[in-house]
C-alpha cells in the first residue's frame, strides 16, 4: 500500500484507489463495504443523504464480489460500493423519487445504467435523497428529509442530486449516480466539492430513469475525482435498445483521455457567464482556474454565447411542459399513493393534489399552462425555437474552441430555507447549467477552490455532443495540477 493510502480511511478512497487495493489484495470488498456502511452509520443522522440503505444486500453483493475476484474475474467495478439517486428504478428496492406519491413503490425492473453498474461488479449501498422527481436545486423539495451539505450542515448540498453529492463528499459512498435535467448533477457536485459529469444527451440510457424533462434528462456520475467519473462513465455509457433516444456510437475508454496534457487545447471563455449576481469569490476562482489551465499550455479564447440569458426561461418552459405529461401517470391506479376518494375523477385530483409536493405541483401547473390551448405557440413552441438559437450558439462556439469554461453555480452552498419560499430565486441557481441540457451537450463540474467560508466552488467545463473525452481531459489535467479535490469535508462525528 502506498503511503498516501495508508492514511486514507477506506470510505474516503477514490474508486481507482480502491480498485487498486482490491486488486493487490490489500482489502476486500466486504471490508470496504463494511467500512462505508459504518461511515453511513456514523454520519447519516446528520447528513441524511440516503432515503434507504440496503446494507444486507450490499454485504451480500460484496461477498459475491470477493468470491468472483478470488476466482480470477475482473469486472471494471468489482467490489466498489456506490449510491444511486432515488429517481433510478431498482428491482425489488423501493423507489420513491423523493415523493409521497410513490411511497412503497417496488419497481419490477432495474434502470439500464444501474444494471450496467451491477454487471460491472459494483455494490449498491442504497438510494439517495433527491428533490421530489428531481425538481429543485437544494434537495429541500424531498418529501422525506433535507440532506445537509457535509461542508456546513446548515447549508444545502445543492440539488436535485444532493443526496448523491453529499454521500460522496461524506464518504458514504465511493461514487454515485445522479441525474441532470438542468444542472442537477453538476450544481450539487460543485456545492459539495466533488466531481459531477452530465453526459451528452443520448450517451447514457434513460431507461429506468423516472422522467422529469425527457428531452433534457441524463444520468451522470458523481465522484471524488475525474478518473472515477471516467470509470463510471465507461460502464454506464452506450447504446440501449430500450431507449429510443440512446446513441449507437461506440463508447471509448474514457480513462484513455486522461493524459494530463492540455497543450494546444482551445478553451473558450464566454463573457455572458460572468454576470451581475455571481458571487465574486466564485468568479475569481473560476477565472483563476482558467488562468491556471492557460499556464498548463491551453489556449484561452474569449467567446460569445449570446443567448445564454435565455436558457433559464426556456428551460423553465420546456422542462415543466414535458414534466406535466411525464407525471400524468401518477393517478393512484397501478402504483403509488391513492387518496381513496369515492369518485374516480375526484380520486385523480385528490391523489395528485395530496401526493405531490408544492414544487412538483407548481411545475406541472406551469407546464400544463405552457401547452394549453391558446398558449402553446407563445410559450412551448417559442421556447423550443429559442432552444434552437441556444444550440446554434454552442455549435458556433465549438467551431472555435474544444471546451468552454464557466462557473457551475453562481454561488456556493446557500443556507437551508434561504430560497425555499421564493421559487424564482431558487431556479436562478441553475442559471449556468441549463443551457448544456437544452443543447444536448456534455459538461463536467470539478472543484476549483473555496470561498471565504470554506465552501467549495465548482469549475464547469462544457464540451460538444459526444465530447466527453475533451472535458474529462481538461478537468483531469486541472485537477491533477491542483489539490482542491483532495480536501475532505470535516465530518460531523468521529468517522471511521
Amino acid at each position: 500500500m502506498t503511503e498516501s493510502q495508508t492514511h486514507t480511511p477506506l470510505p474516503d478512497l477514490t474508486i481507482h484507489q480502491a480498485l487498486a487495493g482490491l486488486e493487490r489484495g490489500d482489502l476486500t470488498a466486504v471490508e470496504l463495504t463494511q467500512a462505508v456502511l459504518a461511515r453511513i452509520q456514523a454520519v447519516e443522522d446528520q447528513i441524511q443523504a440516503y432515503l434507504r440503505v440496503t446494507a444486507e444486500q450490499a454485504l451480500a453483493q460484496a461477498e459475491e464480489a470477493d468470491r468472483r475476484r478470488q476466482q480470477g474475474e475482473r469486472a471494471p467495478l468489482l467490489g466498489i460500493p456506490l449510491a444511486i439517486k432515488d429517481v433510478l428504478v431498482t428491482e425489488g428496492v423501493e423507489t420513491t423519487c423523493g415523493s409521497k406519491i410513490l411511497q412503497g413503490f417496488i419497481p419490477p425492473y432495474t434502470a439500464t445504467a444501474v444494471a450496467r453498474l451491477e454487471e460491472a461488479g459494483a455494490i449498491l449501498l442504497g438510494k439517495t435523497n433527491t428533490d421530489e422527481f428531481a425538481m429543485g436545486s437544494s434537495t429541500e423539495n424531498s418529501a422525506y428529509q433535507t440532506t445537509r451539505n457535509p461542508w456546513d450542515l446548515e447549508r444545502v448540498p445543492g440539488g436535485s442530486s444532493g443526496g448523491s453529492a453529499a454521500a460522496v463528499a461524506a464518504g458514504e459512498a465511493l461514487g454515485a449516480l445522479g441525474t441532470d435535467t438542468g444542472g442537477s448533477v453538476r450544481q450539487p457536485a460543485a456545492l459539495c466539492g466533488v466531481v459531477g459529469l452530465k453526459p451528452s444527451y443520448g450517451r447514457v440510457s434513460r431507461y429506468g430513469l423516472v422522467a422529469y424533462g425527457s428531452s433534457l434528462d441524463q444520468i451522470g456520475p458523481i465522484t471524488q475525482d475525474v478518473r472515477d467519473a471516467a470509470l463510471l462513465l465507461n460502464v454506464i455509457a452506450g447504446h440501449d435498445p430500450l431507449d429510443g433516444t440512446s446513441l449507437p456510437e461506440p463508447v471509448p475508454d474514457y480513462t484513455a483521455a486522461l493524459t494530463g496534457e492540455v497543450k494546444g487545447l482551445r478553451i473558450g471563455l464566454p463573457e455572458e457567464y460572468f454576470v451581475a449576481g455571481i458571487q465574486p469569490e466564485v468568479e475569481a476562482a473560476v477565472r483563476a482556474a482558467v488562468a491556471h489551465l492557460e499556464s498548463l499550455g491551453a489556449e484561452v479564447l474569449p467567446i460569445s454565447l449570446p443567448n445564454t440569458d435565455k436558457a433559464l426561461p426556456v428551460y423553465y418552459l420546456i422542462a415543466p411542459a414535458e414534466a406535466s405529461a411525464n407525471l400524468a401517470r401518477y393517478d393512484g391506479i397501478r402504483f403509488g399513493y391513492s387518496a381513496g376518494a369515492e369518485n374516480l375523477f375526484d380520486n385523480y385530483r385528490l391523489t395528485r393534489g395530496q401526493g405531490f409536493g408544492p414544487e412538483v405541483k407548481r411545475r406541472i401547473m406551469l407546464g400544463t399552462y405552457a401547452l394549453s390551448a391558446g398558449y402553446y405557440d407563445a410559450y412551448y413552441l417559442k421556447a423550443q425555437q429559442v432552444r434552437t438559437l441556444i444550440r446554434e450558439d454552442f455549435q458556433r462556439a465549438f467551431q472555435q474552441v474544444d471546451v468552454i469554461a464557466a462557473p457551475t453555480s453562481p454561488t456556493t452552498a446557500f443556507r437551508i430555507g434561504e430560497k425555499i419560499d421564493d421559487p424564482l430565486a431558487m431556479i436562478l441557481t441553475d442559471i449556468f447549467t441549463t443551457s448544456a441540457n437544452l443543447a444536448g451537450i456534455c459538461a463536467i463540474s470539478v472543484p476549483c477552490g473555496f470561498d471565504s467560508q470554506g465552501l467549495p466552488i465548482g469549475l464547469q467545463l462544457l464540451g460538444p455532443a459526444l465530447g466527453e473525452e475533451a472535458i474529462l481531459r481538461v478537468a483531469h489535467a486541472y485537477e491533477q495540477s491542483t489539490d482542491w479535490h483532495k480536501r475532505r469535508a470535516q465530518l460531523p462525528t468521529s468517522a471511521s
Partner: protein
Amino acid sequence: MSATSSATSKAVDSPSSSSSPASTYLVLGKYEVVVGMEVHAQLLTRSKMFCRCSADYQGAPPNSHTCPVCLGMPGALPVANRAAVEATIKTGLALNCRIAETAVFARKNYHYPDLPKGYQISQYELPLCLDGWVAIDLPDGGSKRIRIRRAHLEEDTGKTTHVDGYSLVDLNRAGVPLMEIVTEADIASPDEAYAFLTKLRTLLRYLGVNSGDMEKGAMRCEPNISVRTPEMRERGEYGVKVEVKNLNSFRSVRNAIAYEAQRQAQILEQGGQVEQVNMGWDEQNQRTVLQRTKESAEDYRYFPEPDIPPLRVEEPWIQAIRATLPELPDAKRARYQEEWGLRRAEAEILTSEKRVADFFEAAVAAYGTAKGKPQRLANWITGELFRLLYAEGQGQDLRQIAGIPMKPEQLAQLLRLVDERVINPNTAKKVLERMVRTGENPQAIVEAEGLAMVSDTAQIDAAIDQVLAAHPEELARYRAGETKLLGFFMGQVMRALKGKADPGLARQRLQEKLQSEASSG
C-alpha cells in the same frame, strides 16, 4: 329546391364523382347528408406498438400481456414497432396517400383509467399518410372517390369493465398498434358510408394489416354526421356535426347515419338547432342517444413525443414497401373480367376477400384459362362452394375458404372429371360436399363410392327398357302426344342408374327408344 338541382353541384365535394342526380340521398325531401368517417384499425403486428408484449391479447387473462412500458411504470420508455410503421405506410400507399417525409409522434394528454401514462402516443401535426382516396361503386354503376385526409399511427387504450360501482381495468390491449384513418366529409348517404367501409375493410384485409373484425373491436368506425340544405351548400356552409360512437357493424353505421340525419333534419325543420355532441348508437332500439363526454374541457395539449425520434420516410423505403403491396381488389376485378372473361358479378364477389381471390386464382392455375373455364370455376365457387361454406361454417364469412380441407387444385380436378365425362355435374356436387369436409381427392371419392358415370350403352338401354316396361300407362300417354313425359322417363332412368348415367347419352338413347317404340307401335 329539387333533388335534381341539388345534385348538379354535388361533384364539387368529390371531384371524380360520376354520381347521377337520381342517386342523391335527401332527408325530409330537402336535407343533404354530410358524413366524414374516422376509422380505427388495429394493426396485425405480433408485438405492441411501443413495447414487445404480445399484441395477441384476445381471450388472454387480464393484465397478462403487460410490462413496465405498457403499464406506464415510472422510468419505462417506448420504442416504436417497425412492422406497425411499415403497415401504416403500406396502407397509405393503398389508399393513394402521400407518405410524409417526416412524421412525428406526439403526446395527447388526458386522464382515463384505460390510459396508463396519462397520455396517448399518437401523431398530430405530422402524420405518416396524407391526402389519399378510396373509390367506391355507386348503385348506378358509376364510382366516387372518398378522399382520405390522413392516416396515422397511435396506440390503443386498455379496457374497462363496469361492475358494481367499480371499473375493472385490463391493460392487455393498451399499446396495441392502432391506425386512424380520417376521411374528408365526402360521404353523402348511409349506403355510401356502407360502401366505403366495405371497401376499406377489403383493402385492409388484402394488405394483411387488419382483420376487419368490427365485432371484436379490431376495426372501429365513428361517423361525423351533419345535414344541410342545398342553399347552405351553395354558400359553402356545413351543418353542426354530431359524432356517433359505439357502432359494432357496418349495418349499424348505415342505420345510425340514416337515423341521425333524420333526427337532425327534424330538429331543423322545427326551427331548432343541432347541438354539437357525441352520441352513442343504441343497437337494440336502433337510435342514437346522447353520450357522456370523457372530459368536459377537451384540451389535449399535444406536443412532440420526446422519447421517440422522428420518422424520416425516404423514397427507397417507400419503394421497398410498395413492392410488397399485393394486387388490390379493383385491379384484380378488372383483370378477371378482361383477361379471364368473368362476369362482373362473380368478379366482384371473388375479389371481395383476398382469401377467396387467392383460392380462385390457385384453382384457375390448376384448371386452365381457356375460354369459359375461369367463369365455370367462378360459378362453382360462388354457387356450390359458398353454399357449403355458409351451411357448414361459422356464419357468412367467406374468409373461411382458406380453412377448409379441400385445396383449390382439387376443385380443379373435380371440374376436370366433369369435363372428361367421368362424372356428371350432379354427382360432382355430391363429391364436392365430401371434398369440402374431408379434403379427399375427387377421383378417390368417385372410386370409393362408385360414382363414375355410366356410359355403357347396353347398360343404359337395359335400364330404359326396364323403365318403359314398368310404366305402360305413361308410355301410352307419351305416345298419345304428351311429350313432356320425356322428363319423367329421364328421371326414372337416372334413378335406375343411381344418378350416375351420362345424362347426354341417356337422353339420346331414351329419345331413340321412344321414337322407335312409337314407330314400331
